[in-house]
């Protein structure tokens, strides 16, 4: 019921949403994360994404299973890109289908919070011809923590 992919290629948001439509679905919420062209260090031309393949698969499955358990979902798609991505390109997408909107909004938000803090991806930003590892944000940790109460 969860479709999970890690890939260097771009994804097709509309096709992913269409794949989730089906009997009983009243709401589809999507999140698309894009490479921002500005960081604290200056203008970002691109990012590079490294990951830990064996663990990525496990952790994304676990995050998806947790979302399915917490909310009555009718479909869940999670795609994370890796490799070299230019500014403006999509990095990640989450799409969640459910009967009513509340579950879809909550599950999509939950999945992103957990992706940001528990899935083994690391970003490097290219600024002025130099690559810098991105620091983790404490706001992301706080966002993930709110689901454990």
């Amino acid at each position, binding site marked *: 019921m969860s479709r999970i992919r890690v890939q260097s290629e771009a994804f097709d948001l509309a096709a992913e949403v269409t794949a989730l439509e089906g009997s009983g679905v009243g709401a589809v919420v999507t999140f698309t994360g894009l490479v921002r062209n500005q960081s604290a260090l200056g203008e970002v031309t691109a990012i590079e994404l490294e990951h830990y393949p064996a*663990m990525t698969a496990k952790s994304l499955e676990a995050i998806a299973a947790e979302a399915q358990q917490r909310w009555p979902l009718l479909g869940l798609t999670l795609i994370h890109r890796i490799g070299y991505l230019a500014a403006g390109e999509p990095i990640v997408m989450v799409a969640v289908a459910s009967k009513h909107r509340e579950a879809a909004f909550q599950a999509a938000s939950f999945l*992103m919070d957990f992706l940001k803090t*528990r899935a083994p*991806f*690391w970003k490097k930003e290219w600024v002025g011809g130099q690559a810098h*590892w*991105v620091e*983790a944000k404490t706001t992301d940790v706080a966002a993930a923590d709110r689901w454990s109460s």
Partner: protein
Amino acid sequence: MQIQILYFARFREKLGRDSEAFELAADRDTSVQSVLDVLAARGGVWQELFDCEKGVLAAINQEMVSRETLVYDEDELALFPPVTGG
């Protein structure tokens, strides 16, 4: 008894390696923290990276663990900075 340690992202770059075999003492339990202590004792960049309360995450056999978790023969221990995907 031996485990495999994997290094990712900034750790991999700074250490100039992505993995190493690591011998466990046979006569006592070894926690993630005690592995970190041995690595930090190598000094230099090792100390800089691993003698650190925060900023080091660990996974054993691809599951996130705490520093108190014990490692066993043939485990895969991954060490990495806080994740920044999504």
